[in-house]
């Protein structure tokens, strides 16, 4: 399967199954599009008609270049990966390597669009005790098999409302990681309200990554991200984020925003983040019920798709000005990205990745917390829901009929199970709006790679 598209002045051809990316001229673009449907003579005659000024030898040369790539396994590569689907999960059955620790099911902000219902996940307010967190870390080490790198997210609600436990858990993990032969990588996701010098010092020392929630423009951010008195949080958190990022000295962080029906023109929010001095950015479409006022409409979607293209243009402009920035969804490592096993396995939710509630229950991921049907077990007694575990273990890109004909399937590996479930009632369903946005992001990300490669070659 190939995917051909034109963007940013480039003609781009992706060979889906080999992962090859080709930037081609107009003649090759047309020829590749018809290559499989026509004989050589038919194709050359058709091209001769369309490009009368091009000598026949030139057409033949172009045909030869396409054919050489096909023979070399870089064009029209057949999909032979289906038998490998599920192998990675089989190989690592029972291995858990990442936990999302819900250290606080409570929040000091009251954001109406929060998928976690203001941190409570449709349940009671609660914070995780050190004992529960310690048991979760022990559970992780015990179930991590030969995995060296273990990932732990401090998540909520607002995790800094339980900061002492976060600090104690990190200290505990550090005290056991050497003996256990593990390397803990911690992430903290915070709304910023409780950031102070102590938090900054701790986060910059211990967190591999910090995710800072900022929606961009003040009026956009303050529409949803308000305290319980209804006051916006932008003025209070921005200086704290700036201080934290400056002190971070280049270590990983993301400014993570959500865009909704009220700001489909999210590029303006990206620009605001840049103006504030932030360069590692992520903006996500809101996840909510279709009848929620925040939900993106079909009209919004058109704007969002256009914004993604403009964002790619802005990134190239900023590259040229020597002021580059990162957009999470446009990061793509074409040379050293994930192997095919990873690409067809899905995200790992419910198998190698689980969420832990403040009282120690296990769920397939943070987005399933609060839905009893998906409870997998707990950190004391282990997993005891083989039916749901089985569903997640067999969930891969080939388990989703709609993905079979999609060119982006090896970039998304079947998409988010939670989004699929909420949109269709099944984790092997497909959240079509999410897919549409994802495909546009991938087209932009690959165009950026092509443009950067071309611009580097010119230098």
């Amino acid at each position, binding site marked *: 399967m190939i995917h051909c598209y034109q963007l940013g002045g480039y003609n781009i051809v992706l060979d889906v199954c080999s992962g090859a990316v080709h930037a081609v001229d107009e003649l090759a673009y047309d020829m590749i599009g018809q290559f499989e449907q026509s004989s050589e003579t038919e194709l050359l005659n058709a091209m001769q008609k369309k490009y009368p000024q091009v000598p026949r030898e030139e057409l033949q040369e172009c045909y030869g270049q396409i054919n050489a790539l096909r023979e070399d396994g870089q064009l029209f590569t057949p999909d032979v990966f289906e038998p490998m689907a599920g192998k990675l999960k089989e190989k690592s059955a029972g291995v858990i390597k990442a936990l999302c620790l819900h250290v606080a099911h409570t929040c000091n902000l009251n954001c109406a669009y929060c998928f976690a219902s203001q941190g409570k996940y449709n349940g009671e307010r609660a914070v995780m005790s050190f004992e529960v967190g310690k048991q979760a870390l022990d559970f992780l080490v015990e179930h991590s098999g030969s995995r060296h790198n273990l990932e732990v997210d401090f998540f909520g609600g607002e995790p800094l409302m339980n900061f002492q436990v976060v600090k104690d858990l990190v200290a505990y993990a550090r005290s056991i990681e050497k003996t256990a032969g593990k390397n803990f990588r911690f992430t903290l996701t915070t709304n910023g309200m409780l950031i102070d010098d102590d938090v900054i010092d701790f986060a910059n020392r211990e967190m591999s990554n910090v995710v800072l929630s900022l929606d961009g423009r003040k009026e956009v951010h303050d529409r949803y991200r308000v305290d319980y008195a209804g006051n916006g949080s932008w003025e209070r958190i921005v200086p704290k984020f700036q201080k934290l990022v400056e002190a971070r000295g280049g270590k990983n962080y993301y400014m993570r925003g959500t865009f909704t029906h009220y700001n489909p023109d999210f590029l303006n929010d990206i620009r605001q983040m840049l103006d504030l001095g932030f360069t590692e950015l992520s903006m996500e479409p809101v996840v909510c019920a279709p009848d929620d006022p925040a939900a993106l409409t079909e009209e919004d979607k058109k704007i969002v798709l256009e914004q993604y293209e403009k964002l790619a243009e802005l990134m190239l402009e900023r590259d040229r000005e020597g002021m580059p920035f990162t957009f999470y969804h446009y990061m793509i490592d074409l040379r050293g990205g994930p192997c095919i096993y990873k690409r067809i396995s899905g995200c790992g939710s419910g198998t190698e*990745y689980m969420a832990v509630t403040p009282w120690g229950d296990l769920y397939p991921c943070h987005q399933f917390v609060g839905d009893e049907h998906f409870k997998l077990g707990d950190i004391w007694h282990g997993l005891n829901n083989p039916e749901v575990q089985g569903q997640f273990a067999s969930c891969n890109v080939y388990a989703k009929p709609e993905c079979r004909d999609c060119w982006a399937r090896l970039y998304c590996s079947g998409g988010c199970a939670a989004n699929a479930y909420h949109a269709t009632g099944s984790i092997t369903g497909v959240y079509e709006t999410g897919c549409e946005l994802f495909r546009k992001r991938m087209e932009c990300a690959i165009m950026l790679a092509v443009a950067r490669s071309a611009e580097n070659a010119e230098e």
Partner: protein
Amino acid sequence: MKHIVTLKTRNLCESAAKGGCGECQTSCQSACKTSCGIANQKCENTNSVKENK
């Protein structure tokens, strides 16, 4: 005349030989939390680095 410029990419078919170590980051852990994409993940298998050389 060169009609096609091919970017250097990891060959996915070849990655089947040495891939599947499971050391790479779990998708969605680092930033998005509400979607899934594996394209921005880094391979952490030291064997696969050799595969590309």
